[in-house]
Every structure is written in structure tokens, then in C-alpha cells.
């Protein structure tokens, strides 16, 4: 499974979006698509479990979880080392 597939899987299970995850573009605003801050916490926890890492403190902000693209950038950075 690719990184993107995993991210989309996590969003399907935890983001509670108003639209289907398949319809999201790479840069679609997830908060604009209905992800609440509560749901974003669950997305974050599920991503940490799926990729087996911990987001760094500086990544724990809204911008990191804004879109599939921004999540991939963060995941790639955290799993690179």
C-alpha cells in the first residue's frame, strides 16, 4: 500500500468528512470538508499508529493536517530518518 493509500484509509476511518475521501484532491482543505479539530486528533493518532512514529511538537498544528498533501509532506519527513 502506498503512503497516499494509507493516508486516505486513515481519513476514511477517522476524519468524519462531509464528502467521500475518494473525491478529495491532493490540496483539498480537510477542515473545509468537515473535519473537526476532535476528528483531526483521531486522524493524527491513527497516522502515528499506521506509520509507527510520533509527530514532532512543531508538526502538531492545524497546517500539518490541512490536506492530504500536507499530511504526506509531514509523514515523509518523519519517516525519512
Amino acid at each position, binding site marked *: 500500500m502506498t503512503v497516499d493509500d494509507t493516508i486516505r484509509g486513515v481519513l476514511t476511518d477517522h476524519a468524519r*468528512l*462531509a464528502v467521500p475521501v475518494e473525491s478529495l484532491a491532493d490540496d483539498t482543505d480537510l*477542515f*473545509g*470538508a*468537515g*473535519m*473537526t*479539530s*476532535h476528528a483531526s*486528533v483521531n486522524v*493524527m*493518532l491513527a497516522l502515528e499508529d499506521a506509520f509507527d512514529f*510520533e*509527530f*514532532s*511538537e*512543531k508538526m*502538531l*498544528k*492545524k497546517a500539518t493536517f490541512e490536506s492530504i498533501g500536507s499530511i504526506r509532506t509531514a509523514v515523509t519527513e518523519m519517516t525519512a530518518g
Partner: protein
Amino acid sequence: MTTALTTPPTMTSGGSVSARMAAIADEVAGPASAEVDAQARFPTETIEALRAEGLLAALVPTALGGGGATLAEVSDGLVALGRRCASSAMVVAMHHIQVACLVRHGDNPILRDYLGELSEQQYLLASATTEVGTGGDVRSSICALEVADGRFRVEKQAPVISYADAADAVLVTTRRNAESPESDQVIVLCRPPTLELEQVGEWNALGFRGTCSTGFVLRASGPAEAVLTEPYSDISTRTMLPVAHLLWSSVWLGIATDAVELARKFVQAEARRKPGTTPAASVRLAQTTVLHQQFVDMVGSSLARFEAADADGDKLSSIGFGIGMNALKVSSSTLVVDIVRECMLICGLASYRLDTPYSLGRHLRDAMGAALMVNNDRIMANNSQMLLVHRGE
């Protein structure tokens, strides 16, 4: 955009903002407080006095015609007001919270001009955040903006808009548009003559009776530029929530401070009657003074935490800062009740009776509202979520 509130004061006349608020607290708000409470009426004379002193624009930068005061100065002034009339202080706190949102996030010419007009005319701002059907969750809206031909329209069923009848404008949270999910909110400035308020019910509550927090159906329209560009979630995180918790805490500290002052006077009067014997309640007074000092220091350190986070832009949005500001609200709303209750034990029946100089009935009734206005259980639920991902740094 995040500016002002932590820049040095440059008030031009008659002493500091906090000193002038304190003078109005003693001379105007205090004498009117019993009637405001008994009749559950708006503290008109207090707001008029603040207006005459230009203090409703205290937080507006001087470049826009305001007082350029810091949040700490307004906090000090609210402690003073809270000592004399907690309803007045709460109204003024709620107003300044809205002003702070406009100052820090009202980033287009129409909203900048409005702040100039607010300073000149000394407008009072109210807020409509809660909505019928959202179960008290201010971070979701059902009503939605309709924007067409450069103008917005909105209708909101608001279970509470405090002092709406006395306000010159209302800041309203709403969904961004009819297609937006409930969590995608914006704030819009609604003002007469295109603001219509239909009152629903009465405000007859245990405390904060002068805030006149009745329900309304709000209908408004106006220029599309009256909508703040930034999402409400960001404005809430960076300004509305921390500033609200700081200023509410200042009001509650005022209530606690007056209760401790009455308790101290009571114990001192006892001591004068029987020189040589320490009054029975003096140890409890000493213990209560410890609690009160915790409260004073917590509000002071929380103001410093806000200023430090504000100086380092990213910190305002950090999980640790959010948890800290929520902890402040829960802690201060708990402490105010604890302190008033201890003071009642110190003053005994004199505090329980409604006709003595040591009566603490209104203090207790007002204090009990603190944990309920944004329920502490909801705030703890939010913090418990954030703690799942907090790194403790």
C-alpha cells in the same frame, strides 16, 4: 494577522485605563449593583460612564483612535469592576473580547474603518456564538451565510445574546456558506440598520443578572467585507478563547477579591471587639488568603503566557498553550466558588443574611455561573482530547 494588545499603553488623559475603570467601579458600578441585580437590568450607567471616558475602545490601537491599552491593563480594570458589580464587569469583558477579535483579525479596510468608528462613537459589541440545535458547541454552526452581489445575509436562532438590546453591533458565528460542514465557520459583523433582533424568552437567572442574556432570532445583512477572512477556528484558537478565558478570569478574581476583603474586615472587627484573643475564623482567613494569592498569581502568569505566545506567532496555535488557557478557565471558575464559600464560613450568618454589610449572597450566585458559561466538563473533554497528542513541551 495578529497585532496589538501587548504593546505599551499610550492613554492620553486622566490616568491609566485600569485606574479609570477602577474609579468607575467605585463611583458608578458599585452604587448601582444592588438594583442591577434585583431587577436583572442592564447596567446602563456603568457602560455610559465607560463610554464617556473612551474606555470601550481601550483595546483599539491609538492609530485607529483607540486607547492602545494592553490586555493586562484591561484585566486589572475588570478585577476592579468585578469587585463592585460582576454583571457590569462581565458585560465589559465580553465587549472587549469581541473588540480584540476585530483588532487582531479584522484585516480589511471596512473593518479597520469600523474600529475607527467604534472608537469615535464608543460602540458596545455583543456576540452570538451559541445556536439552538448545536448542544452548546460553539465550534459548530447550523446557520449559513448567503453571499450574493457583494452582500451577505444570515439568520441565526441564538439561545443567548448577552445585552443584545444595548449593543451597537453583534459579532455572529455562522457556517461559511450553505454547502459548508458545521465546523467550517466564519465571524461576521452585524450592525443596524440591517440587523434585526427578535427576542425569545426572558433572562431571570441565579447570577450575572445584569448581563441580560436572553435568546434572540437574529436576522442581518451587510457588505461581504463585514465577514472576517480568517476561519473562526483560527480566530478562536489565537484570540477569542485565550482572551475570553483571561478576561472572564479577571472578572471572577474581582468577585473573589471582594469576598476576601469582606472576610478580612469581618475578622478584624471581631479582633477589635476582643483585643488579646485571636478570632476563631482568623486561621481560615489566612488559608483563604493563600487561595486568593494563587488566583491573583495565576491570572498574572496567564497574561504573561499569552503575551509570550503572541510574540512567537506559532505558540498561540500550539497544543500546550491551548491546554494551558483551558486550565486557566477551569481553575479560576473553581477557585472563585471555593473562595466565596470559605469567606462565608469566615463571616458566618452575617454572610448568609441578605441585609448585612458582610452579605455574600450575590457573590455566591454570580460565582456559580463561572463553571457553566462554556461548561467546565466540555472544556475538560477538549483538554482530554488534546492531551492524547500533547508532547509535554
